[in-house]
């Protein structure tokens, strides 16, 4: 399983989101609180900055290496400013069938497309579904797929539901609708194939202005053979997702987080809270879609049932 973080709001130095929090994404790569173990397979970040050239398009940094040994990443993140970012630590099964390379590192973001996606989850038996999913995607998008992950194919499938994936700034509702449609199609494929093992699909999708996140699973409670949840980990058998919304990201009471004010101007979404004090965080409910829409001077954050 992977770990992800997404930020949207007032401009920050990337280091303040990726490295500074007590339980930052980089720290979670080594010491996740809500997960028993992780086999690390790469790190990636996509970031947008309103003040950068071609501000609609993000820059990306993806490596099959590990973030805590990455001096280049650390040096870069201390200088780079961002008004939106997605960060992702890839975790894989301990199996020689996993493909660990740069092409499979999240977030996914194709050349010229302002939308990026990162996923914390795993579609069971995806290799057997890949051709079904590919058939649902127009050739001009399908040809862009470089890697072998379920996540990248989901990214292409979601893009295929947008009227113009190359256009800057998607409408948040259009993006949310595209995610819902893609998940419904995946459910149909799974039903047709008779696949019914639990498959988590926690997604964060953003174009740098709005953000859509899911806490979702197909067939929750239909465990894989050999999974045991008799121990403490059982509390987290539905892959976790948390968020904190507030005013002014910064160091508040010794912890890096959004500030306590309202209306909200900044949002963080993460696999687990980034701060040890969890009172500023809320859990995204299971089977829910979170939508963050920028207003004049605020971010509207709403949650709704995702009935895919």
């Amino acid at each position, binding site marked *: 399983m992977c770990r992800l973080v997404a930020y949207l709001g007032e401009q920050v130095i990337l280091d303040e989101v990726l490295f500074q929090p007590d339980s930052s994404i980089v720290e979670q790569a080594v010491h996740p609180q809500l997960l028993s173990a992780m086999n690390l397979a790469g790190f990636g970040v996509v970031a947008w900055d309103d003040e950068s050239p071609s501000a609609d398009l993000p820059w990306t940094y993806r490596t099959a290496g590990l973030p805590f040994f990455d001096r280049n990443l650390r040096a870069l993140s201390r200088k780079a400013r961002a008004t939106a970012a997605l960060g992702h630590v890839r975790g894989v099964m301990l199996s020689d069938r996993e493909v660990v390379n740069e092409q499979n590192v999240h977030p996914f973001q194709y050349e010229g497309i302002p939308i990026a996606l990162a996923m914390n989850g795993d579609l069971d038996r995806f290799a057997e579904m890949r051709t079904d999913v590919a058939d649902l995607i127009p050739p001009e998008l399908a040809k862009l797929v470089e890697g072998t992950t379920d996540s990248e194919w989901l990214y292409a499938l979601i893009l295929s539901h947008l009227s113009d994936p190359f256009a800057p700034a998607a409408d948040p509702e259009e993006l949310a609708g595209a995610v819902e449609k893609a998940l419904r199609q995946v459910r149909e494929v799974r039903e047709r194939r008779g696949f019914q093992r639990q498959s988590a699909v926690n997604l964060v999708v953003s174009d740098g202005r709005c953000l859509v996140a899911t806490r979702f699973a197909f067939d929750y*409670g239909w465990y894989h053979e050999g999974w045991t949840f008799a121990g403490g980990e059982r509390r987290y058998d539905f892959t976790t997702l948390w968020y904190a919304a*507030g005013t002014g990201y910064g160091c508040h009471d010794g912890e890096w987080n959004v500030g306590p004010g309202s209306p909200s101007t900044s949002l963080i979404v993460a696999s687990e809270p980034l701060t040890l004090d969890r009172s500023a965080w809320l859990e995204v409910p299971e*089977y829910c879609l979170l939508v963050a829409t920028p207003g004049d001077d605020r971010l509207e954050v709403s949650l709704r049932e995702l009935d895919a």
Partner: protein
Amino acid sequence: MSSMPEGDVLAALGALDLFEGAPPAVLERLAAVARPFSLAAGEYLFHEGDPGDRMMLLASGSVEGILRLPGGRELEAQSLGHGALIGEMGMLASHPRRLSARASVATAGWSFAAAEIGQLGATEVPAVMRRVGRLALERLREHYELLSELCREDPRAEGSSRSAELDDAGPVVVVEREPEETAYLETVLFFSAFSPAEIEELFGDLRRLEAPRGAPVVPDSEQGPTLLIVLRGAVESSIRHGGLATRTRLAGPGRIVGHLNLLREGLTPVASRARERSILLEVPLDRVAQITERGDDTGRRFGRAVYADVVDALFEAQRPISRLAAAGG
């Protein structure tokens, strides 16, 4: 700092309804391990998220239970005074603290390590366990009532609200036990407390139900005569308000649906439906009583497993409370 608690800890323990009927030797052993504490007004007894490994008995003063909300706000959930117990749910299941507890005036009392309460035999007294279990159930009902109220106050009820309309799902049907069911159950919470022979003895002859995705499994406002334990899939319980529903719990494998039926009185404000296609074990309340009252180790483990799940449901019900209270401010 205020002074140490005055009075006799043994007398204070003996005055608790919870320990009525407990052998004097058990209370004496408990009194011997009691640790006195005192707090000035405004001092914290513990914070939300701290390990729930101690039970506290208040001798004087008063303590308020506080839920901290995003934005630095607080929701005062309860206020307790002289003779009150705090953290007794730790006797049923070890969970981090759900609330922070702060002294509103100078307060004193005694604290007991949950592990010691067990070792000293207090949790072996069936009457004590029954009472603390009942207390957990009553708290669960209070949580659901509070949620109901919060939902009414805020009809927008931001959070996990969804349309209350249930899909037109197929009927719930009785199914055969799946092959190798016992081997599977041994790996699942709740059932992992029992040996394969015990699983067979306690649950072997009971009915397995299959509920299609979306099917209602516990009707509204009706006390069913059973508990349902999820074997596969998931059942969600919700409180309805207007045209919306707010989820109070998502019960995956090894989780119980219909706890409040154990109170055998009053109406339950929650309705449940299969969120995924589910296989459920139907445990008649008579069977629950029969197992818990047999007085052996198996019966005690069964009781503890049921009550531990009630405590878990309490935690889950707090999530929408935080969300609704945060949105309502």
